[in-house]
């Protein structure tokens, strides 16, 4: 999985979102240990302090927690994982409506087209 960073926004929230997506997708399974800040920063080609801030955000959301010995563990809490999954899904849906709106479709028309896909 690659790190995609766009230009107009601060970097750390983008990293936090992509880490969250990896957790939801099971790239980092529940209960597993996340790679260290340094490893993740080197992988994404970003500053360790920026990655640190993204990981702090994950802790805040409950998706990860600091372990006493070292590092961070992915949560096993199904409710938190499901809530995060739903948040991401809603973001994808909003993105769809925005893209459709740019093409000149109203929300209703956009929703109708989705339904037709299933017929």
């Amino acid at each position, binding site marked *: 999985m690659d790190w995609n960073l766009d*230009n107009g*926004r*601060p*970097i750390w929230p983008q990293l936090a979102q992509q880490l969250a997506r990896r957790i939801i997708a099971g790239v980092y399974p529940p209960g597993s240990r996340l790679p260290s800040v340094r490893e993740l920063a*080197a992988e994404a*080609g970003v*500053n*360790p*302090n920026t990655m640190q801030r993204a990981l702090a955000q994950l802790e805040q959301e409950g998706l990860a927690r600091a372990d006493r010995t070292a590092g961070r563990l992915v949560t096993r809490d199904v409710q938190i994982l499901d809530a995060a999954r739903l948040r991401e899904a809603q973001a994808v849906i909003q993105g769809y409506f925005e893209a459709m709106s740019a093409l000149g479709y109203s929300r209703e028309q956009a929703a109708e087209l989705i339904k037709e896909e299933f017929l």
Partner: protein
Amino acid sequence: MSDCLIECRGLYKSYGLRPALRGVDLEVGPGRIVGLLGPNGSGKTTLIKLLCGLLQPTTGWLAVDGRAVGPYTKSVVSYLPDRMYFADWMKATDLFDLFRDFYQDFEYEKAMSMCRSLGVEPGDRLKAMSKGTKEKVQLVLVMARSAKLYLLDEPIAGVDPAARDFILRTILTNYNEEGTVLISTHLISDVEKVLDEAVFLKEGKIMLHATVDDIREKEGKSVDALFREIFRAEPMWEGGEL
């Protein structure tokens, strides 16, 4: 003692009558990666040379790690100059020997392993190396020290884009965690992601010093885009008649 690693107050430097720095105030803390950004001739190299003691300020003062620039600060500053200063008959290993003698914090083994990962043959003579390879050797010399302050003057200008990413990654994974890295460059889009802070120099003065995330948040654009906006050269016909 302050907890600033770099402290400059009213720093002024002129070459003869030509001012290069015109009143620079700057504070940088430990553990930061800072981009020193500005167009050609804005004073980037002059500021770096003052910090490593190669030049003396005309007026104003500066301190590194709370001390005036001198033998102590030189022992904790690792400097990558903007040009090569070694004799070309030397091998990379000769340089490593030299650095081991000069700097207590130089780690020979680390230098050798960085060579391996950068694809540099340390037994080759400098004159047999390409420009990019020589730059890599210089980078190895600088990053194999565990310094408090790394001053990198245009570290990525001469290498191809793939090697650039690799070099930035080398900097990220090898700098000592309490160390601060000051990178001067005009290739902003390449370094933007690795920076904590950006310092914009214009005509010898600091016109902006902020964290990259703050710039992106406030301006809604990348540091690169902001730089292009601030330093856009006026087209020749601007305001005039065609």
